[in-house]
C-alpha cells in the first residue's frame, strides 16, 4: 500500500516536471491580425496592421532566441458574426494565441467574448468603444491605442472650454457611435454645455446632406461627428459644401485618422482639431519607424495610430512572453504578466496597462495644417497640446470593470 502511494506521488511529480519542461521548451506563437481588409476602415487598419504585426515580430528579437512566430490575417468585413466565426476558427483549428487590431466596436465587443471563452489574448488597437476596458472588460483583453473616453475628454473637453457650449451630434448608428456620443455628452454636461440634438445615421452612408441640414438648423455651436473613416470624411467634405463652417458653426471630428485627412485633402480639412495617441512625425523614433513602415507599404503610407498600436501592443506582448521564458498558451497568465510590466516602446513612449486592461500613454491634440504649411505628401498635423495619460483615460475610480472589485 505504502509502496503504491509513493509510486503514485512519484508519478505525479514526474508528470508535473515533464509538463514544466514542455512549457519551458514551447517557444511557438501564433498571431491573428483580425481587421477590416476591404471596407471603409481598411486603410487605417487592414493590410497595414498585418505589416505592423510582422514588423513587431521581426523587431522583438525573439527569433534569435529560438522562437517561432506565425502571423495570419483575416477580414471581418465589419460584421460581428463573421468576426466571431473567424476568431473561433483561429482558436479551435489554427491554435492562435493572440488576436490583434479588430477595428469596429461592434465586432470588437463580439470578439472580446470569444477570446475570453477560449482563454486567448486580445490586444485591441482598432476599436474605440471604452466598454472594452470598462463594463465589458475581461482578464484576457488589453485595449491599446485609444478609446471613446479619451476622445471625449481631450477633443470634446478642449472645444467646450473654448466656448463651444451647445452641441449637435452626427452619430454612426452602432456600438462605436453610441459609446462616443455617450462619453462626449458626459463631458459636455460636466463642463456646463448642453446637447441640443442629434441624428443617428447608418454605417457607411455616402450622403450626409439631410443630416447636415438638420445640424445647421439646430443652431448648435458645435457639430460633433461621432463617426469614423469614410463616414467622417464625407461629413466633413459635405459640411464644407453647405457652408456650415463659414456660417459660424464648428465641426468637431471626434475621431480622425491620418488616412482620413489624406482622403479629404488639406484644402477642406485645414483647421480641424482632433486627438490621436500617435503621429508619424512626433519625434525621431516615430519618424524612424514610420520610414521603415512606409517603405514596405504598397502605397508608401506611414502608419496610422491603429497600425502603430498593433506594433506596440505586440512588442509588449513579446516582452511578456520572453519574461515568462516560454509560451504557456494561457491568455489570463500572459495578460497578467503584461500588466505587471511597465510599457515602454519607441512609438507610444512610457506607460502602463491598468488592471482593467486599459493601456495608458500620452494623447496629443492636433490641428490640421493649411495647404501652404504642409511640406510633403503626409505632412498634415500641427501639435497643439499634449495630455498626459492619467488625464486622458478613464480614472480607475470611475471604471465599472468587474476585475477591479476584488
Amino acid at each position, binding site marked *: 500500500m505504502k509502496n503504491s502511494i509513493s509510486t503514485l506521488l512519484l508519478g505525479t511529480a514526474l508528470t508535473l516536471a515533464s509538463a514544466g519542461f514542455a512549457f519551458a521548451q514551447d517557444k511557438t506563437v501564433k498571431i491573428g491580425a483580425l481587421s477590416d481588409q476591404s471596407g471603409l*476602415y481598411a486603410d487605417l487598419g487592414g493590410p497595414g496592421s498585418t505589416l505592423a504585426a510582422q514588423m513587431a515580430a521581426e523587431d522583438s528579437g525573439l527569433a534569435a532566441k529560438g522562437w517561432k512566430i506565425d502571423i495570419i490575417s483575416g477580414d471581418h468585413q465589419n460584421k460581428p458574426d463573421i468576426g466571431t466565426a473567424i476568431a473561433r476558427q483561429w482558436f479551435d483549428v489554427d491554435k492562435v494565441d493572440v488576436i490583434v487590431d479588430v477595428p469596429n466596436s461592434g465586432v470588437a465587443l463580439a470578439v472580446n467574448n470569444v477570446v475570453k471563452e477560449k482563454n486567448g489574448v486580445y490586444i485591441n488597437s482598432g476599436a474605440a468603444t471604452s466598454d472594452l476596458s470598462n463594463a465589458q472588460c475581461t482578464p484576457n483583453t488589453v485595449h491599446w491605442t485609444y478609446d471613446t473616453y479619451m476622445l471625449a475628454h481631450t477633443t470634446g473637453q478642449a472645444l467646450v472650454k473654448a466656448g463651444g457650449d451647445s452641441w449637435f451630434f452626427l452619430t454612426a448608428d452602432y456600438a462605436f457611435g453610441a459609446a462616443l456620443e455617450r462619453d462626449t455628452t458626459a463631458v459636455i454636461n460636466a463642463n456646463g454645455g448642453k446637447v441640443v440634438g442629434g441624428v*443617428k445615421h447608418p454605417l457607411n452612408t455616402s450622403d450626409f*446632406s439631410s443630416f447636415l441640414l438638420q445640424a445647421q438648423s439646430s443652431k448648435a455651436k458645435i457639430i460633433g461627428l461621432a463617426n469614423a473613416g*469614410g463616414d467622417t470624411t464625407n461629413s466633413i467634405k459635405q459640411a464644407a459644401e453647405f*457652408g456650415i463652417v463659414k456660417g459660424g458653426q464648428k465641426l468637431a471630428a471626434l475621431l480622425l485618422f491620418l488616412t482620413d485627412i489624406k482622403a479629404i485633402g488639406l484644402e477642406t480639412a485645414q483647421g480641424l482639431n482632433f486627438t490621436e495617441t500617435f503621429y508619424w512625425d512626433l519625434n525621431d523614433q516615430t519618424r524612424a519607424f514610420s520610414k521603415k513602415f512606409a517603405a514596405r507599404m504598397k502605397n508608401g503610407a506611414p502608419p496610422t495610430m491603429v497600425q502603430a498600436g498593433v506594433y506596440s501592443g505586440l512588442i509588449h506582448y513579446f516582452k511578456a512572453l520572453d519574461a515568462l521564458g516560454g509560451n504557456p498558451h494561457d491568455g489570463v497568465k500572459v495578460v497578467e504578466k503584461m500588466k505587471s510590466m511597465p510599457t515602454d516602446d519607441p512609438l507610444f513612449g512610457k506607460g502602463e496597462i491598468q488592471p482593467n486592461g486599459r493601456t495608458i500613454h500620452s494623447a496629443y491634440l492636433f490641428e490640421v495644417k493649411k495647404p501652404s504649411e504642409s511640406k510633403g505628401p503626409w505632412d498634415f498635423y500641427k501639435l497643439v497640446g499634449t495630455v498626459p495619460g492619467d488625464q486622458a483615460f478613464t480614472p480607475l475610480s470611475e471604471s465599472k470593470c468587474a476585475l477591479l472589485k476584488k
Partner: protein
Amino acid sequence: MQALYAQLLVGLINGSFYALLSLGLAVIFGMLNIINFAHGAVYMMGAFVAYFLLNNAYLSIGYWPALIIAPIVVGIFGMILERTMLQWLAGLDHLYGLLLTFGLALIIQGVFQNYFGSSGLPYAIPDYPTIGGFHGLQGGMNLGFMFLPIYRGWVVIFSLVVCIGTWYLIERTRLGAYLRAATENPTLVRAFGINVPRMITLTYGLGVGLAALAGVLSAPINQVRPLMGENLIIVVFAVVVIGGMGSIMGSIVTGFALGVIEGLTKYFYPEASNTVVFVFMVLVLLVKPTGLTGRAA
C-alpha cells in the same frame, strides 16, 4: 416647415443620381435584356477617370472636359465588355447576364481597391470659369429656407436635361425607333439592312456612359472611392424595379421620387433611411407586380 422644404430639395438632388443611374440600367435592360450589375462599378470608374484626368501631371484636365471625356472612356470600356463577353449571352436567361456582370463588378472594384485603398481620394468642386462673383460652381445661395450649394443645384438641372434628352432619343427619334424595333424582332430589323449587333453594342456603351457621367457628377460631393457604387447599385435596382423594368420614363420619375422619399425619411426617422426604398418596393410590387409604369411581359 422650412426644414421640410430643405429636405425635399436635398431629396431631389439625390434623386437625380438615382435617375441617371437607373436610366442607364433601364436602357440596358430594355435593349439588351441584361440586368447590369456592373453599373455601380462603372459609375465608380467614371469618378476615377475624372480624378486621373485632373491629377495626371501631363493632362491636368479639369471638371468640365471630364464631363464629356470620362463617359466616353468608360463607355468604350463598356463596349469592349459587350463585344468580348456580354454578346454571347444574348437569348439566354437573365440570370447569366446578372451573374457575369456581378462578377465583373467584383473584379473591377477589387482591382481599384487594391491600387487605391478604401478611404478615397479628394476631388474639389470646380472653381472655373469665374463669372461675376461666382467661382465656377463653388459657394452657394441662401434660399431663405436653406443654403443651397450651387454645385448641387447644377447637378439637378444637368441630370434632368440628360434624362429628358435620353428619353427623347429613345422614344421620339428614328434611331430610337430602330432600337426598340431591334429588341422586339432583331431578325426583321436586320432584314432592313440595319446592323443590329453594332446597335446593341452602342446601346450598352450609352448606358455605361450614363453611369460614368453620374460618377463624374458625384466626385466633388462624395469621396472618389472604389466602393462608392457598391451600396448605391442596390438602391438603383430597386428604383428600376419600382419604375417597371425597362421603362425609361418610369425609371426617371421613380429615381427622383425615391430620392425625395429617402430625404424625408432621413428627416423624420433617419435610422430607416437605408431601408425605406425597399419597403416602398415591396409595397409597390404587392399592388402592381410589373412596377409603376411597367407593362406585363
